[in-house]
């Protein structure tokens, strides 16, 4: 029982060395690591932009950046964080790594397409880097026409192409997941034995497949308008700029769920593992993911309530927008009920899960205020919206991502990180986050519009609070980078199942062998069956 675990002799990390063994790999686990590295680069780049923004906003005047630079900073912050960090964050790293393992497969259905998707992502990233290096882009991540198509004199074309290309990487990831989940399940792994993480990714993939092509074609239309002088959205030729918004949000609203659904999946895993209990109402949680995916396609115009759309259309979209709140609420209630009669321990991943519960719930509920027509007229395009979606994107998606990363890190690298430091970081993130974004709700109701470089002096107190919070938050993000890197060499060896968790991925060595399992597993039990003997002492392999 007390025997110190050792690393397995052969695993995916030492199965071949050298750059070529990585850059030409078809192993989903290695591709996940490649993604992990690249999205981290983008995350810190986007974070740097956020830092510039918050520094500038500490005073009402324009003292650090010029207006043009400021506009470029928030545009790149948005483009990088949305298209190059949040959308690939959990699916392409944790999903890529663990979906094949969770369904009991050797790899994804199309390993070469998986690698291709990473290269496509890189090409998209290079276009964006080029735009950044050549002088930036200032349209906002939403690329609203006619500003983007005709007026802005920055590098819109390169950025639009970057987003266009990165979209295909996202499509291919989704396609791979759908086929894997349909066709590659191990014997006995029925749909209702799948971990909820897999269900959430299935729903995410549907959105990636159905939504992403629409943003791709929209970006292409902006491209032909700008590059060749075509007129599709150009009001001077009778085009309608609002049509762009319809097409843009047809993707970009569901895209919010591309970012948050995988985090909801991670949450189900964390709650189950750290309360050693099956998720309450498994099938409701599973189907709520699909419901969110489908409903997400019929609510998009709630981003356009004051964009001159018809009053009736606005009412229909407001009505439908509430429908997407219900499955989200169902999830939160079920997680809470899971804690009843559980055996809860508070290691770092569970701290993130608790933080997520608070922030996602609050973020989601403030969404109701924005879905309500009467209040949205006042709040649209103010800091209230900024605060709301950061609660979902940062408080939800990034908390989920960090929680998942801490949960599966021992599996991915075979070693533990420093538990004390990681708890400190989790608390810093939670406190810093709230300090940063809670004041922005107040600012938003006061009427401070988003994307403002300067603001009336009476808004300063709240802005200073927000900037102060951002520095705490920044610290909370840098800390994991340090101790996780440190753990690669010096961390204690984790063993196959350090948390006493259920699930196929914990039934193989850490790190797993290239083919994931020594023999194809046969599944005979439901998901989240925690047997008393599955405590950490028990060795399965």
């Amino acid at each position, binding site marked *: 029982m007390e025997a110190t675990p050792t690393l397995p002799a052969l695993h995916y990390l030492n199965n071949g060395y050298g750059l070529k063994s990585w850059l030409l790999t078809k192993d989903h686990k290695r591709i996940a690591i490649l993604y992990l590295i690249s999205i981290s680069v983008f995350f810190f780049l986007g974070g740097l932009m956020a830092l510039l923004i918050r520094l500038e906003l500490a005073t009402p005047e324009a003292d650090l950046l010029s*207006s043009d630079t400021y*506009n470029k900073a928030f545009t790149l912050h948005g483009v990088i964080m949305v298209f190059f960090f949040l959308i690939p964050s959990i699916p392409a790293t944790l999903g890529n790594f663990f979906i094949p393992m969770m369904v009991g497969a050797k790899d994804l259905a199309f390993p070469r397409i998986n690698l291709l998707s990473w290269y496509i992502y890189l090409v998209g990233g290079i276009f964006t880097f080029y735009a950044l290096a050549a002088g930036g882009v200032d349209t906002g991540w939403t690329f*609203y026409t*006619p*500003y983007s198509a005709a*007026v802005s004199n920055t590098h819109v074309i390169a950025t639009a192409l970057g987003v266009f290309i990165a979209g295909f990487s996202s499509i291919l990831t989704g396609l791979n997941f759908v086929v894997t989940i349909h066709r590659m399940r191990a014997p006995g792994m029925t749909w209702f034995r799948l971990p909820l993480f897999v269900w959430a990714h299935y729903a995410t993939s549907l959105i990636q497949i159905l939504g992403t092509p629409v943003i791709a074609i929209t970006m292409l239309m902006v491209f032909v308008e700008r590059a060749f002088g075509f007129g599709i959205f150009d*009001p*001077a030729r009778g085009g309608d*700029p609002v049509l762009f918004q319809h097409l843009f949000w047809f993707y970009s609203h569901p895209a919010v769920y591309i970012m948050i659904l995988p985090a909801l999946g991670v949450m189900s895993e964390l709650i189950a593992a750290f309360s050693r*209990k*099956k998720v*309450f*109402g498994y*099938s*409701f949680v599973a189907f709520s993911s699909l419901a969110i995916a489908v409903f997400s396609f019929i609510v998009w115009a709630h981003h356009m*309530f*004051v964009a001159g759309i018809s009053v009736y259309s606005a*009412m229909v979209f*407001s009505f439908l927008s*509430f429908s997407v*709140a*219900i499955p989200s*609420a169902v999830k*939160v*209630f*079920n997680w*809470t009920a899971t804690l009843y*009669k*559980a*055996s*809860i*321990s508070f290691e770092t991943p569970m701290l993130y899960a608790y933080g997520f*519960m*608070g922030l996602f*719930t609050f973020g989601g*509920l*403030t969404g109701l*205020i924005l*879905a*309500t*027509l*009467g*209040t*949205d*007229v*006042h709040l649209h*395009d*103010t800091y209230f919206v900024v605060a709301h979606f950061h609660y979902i994107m940062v408080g939800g998606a990034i908390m989920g991502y960090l929680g998942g990363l801490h949960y599966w890190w021992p599996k991915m690298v075979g070693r533990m990180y420093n538990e004390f430091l990681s708890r400190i970081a989790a608390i810093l993130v939670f406190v810093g986050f709230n300090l940063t974004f809670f004041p922005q709700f*107040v600012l938003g109701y*006061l*009427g401070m*519009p*988003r994307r403002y*470089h*300067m603001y*009336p002096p*009476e808004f300063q107190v709240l802005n200073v609070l927000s900037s102060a919070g951002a520095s705490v938050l920044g610290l909370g993000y840098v800390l994991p980078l340090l101790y996780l890197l440190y753990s690669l060499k010096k961390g204690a060896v984790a063993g196959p199942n350090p948390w006493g968790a259920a699930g196929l991925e914990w039934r193989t060595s850490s790190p797993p062998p290239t083919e994931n399992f020594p023999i194809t597993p046969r599944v005979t039990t439901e998901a989240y069956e*925690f047997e008393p003997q*599955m405590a950490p*002492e028990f060795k399965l392999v």
Partner: protein
Amino acid sequence: MGNGFSLFPAQASTFAPDVDALYFFVLAVSAFFALAIAVAVIVLGVKYRRRHVGEVGARVEGNLVLELLWSIIPTMITMVMFGWGASVYYHLRRAPDEALQVYAVGKQWMWKFQHLEGQREINELHVPLGRAVKVTIASEDVLHSLYFPSFRQKMDAIPGRYTTLWFEASQVGTYHIFCAEYCGTNHSRMIGQVVVMEPAAYQSWLSGGGEGSLAQRGAALFQQLACNSCHLDSGQGRGPSLKDIFGKPVEFQDGSSTIVNEAYLRESILTSQAKIVKGFQPLMPTFQGLISEEGLVALIEHVKSLSPNASTAPPAAAPAPAAPPAPATPPRR
């Protein structure tokens, strides 16, 4: 404005209290659920904390009644939010018939306002207390959004068409005007102030202009652009008479018809061939690019002034002109 730190915006329009009440209702419901969840997870977390290493949770599968309860109750609560929100929204969007007309033009990066009596302002708007004001908004370049936080009212300015918003100020004072839709470099400098005045003070402010009313300026433009050489009041000219047409139906060559309103007049000036009035030839040249947004509203006001009986708005629910919004844009740089 200019007042110091506060946590809540001034309530300076008649519907600010309505919007705020709705806001507090949704906020209270949200706070209740957020707190309930927070308390529940903390209490459960303490109560069911792991006591020894090998412990596992109890086997609980789920409960259909609970699932239904916590799906149906939130659904009903959100339906209340929807209904209430939609009614406030309808009120926000539907301007009363007798509203005072003001024109706003957004351009990078300023707001230009014009009053019917002729006053023109930049980044400042004077309005009377206790009177509904309808602002018709146009844009000369990109998207903007006219935002009065203290009135809880906002509407995008869209190049190529008119949008409107309305409010009735309920408190004398000076309040912010913001541009809420990102519009380029100096987006955050596209701000101004709305000055709410006592009606008497407003009247004397109005008469301080001396440029002549908007309609008079339109009349001058009407001569200058030689509109009057065809549009004779007698109806004998090459173009239809513009007397007493506003708010009335007009019939076109192809048999369709519409009610004459601002959008139709705008279209007829800029896209003169789009709809040809029955009995006339498509002779009129387009004024696309020859006339500014401000000149356009002056002309429209002039035409409206020729219909003195149409000051109250025409009957509601005009048959939809199945036509594009006046597809035209001001000159571009």
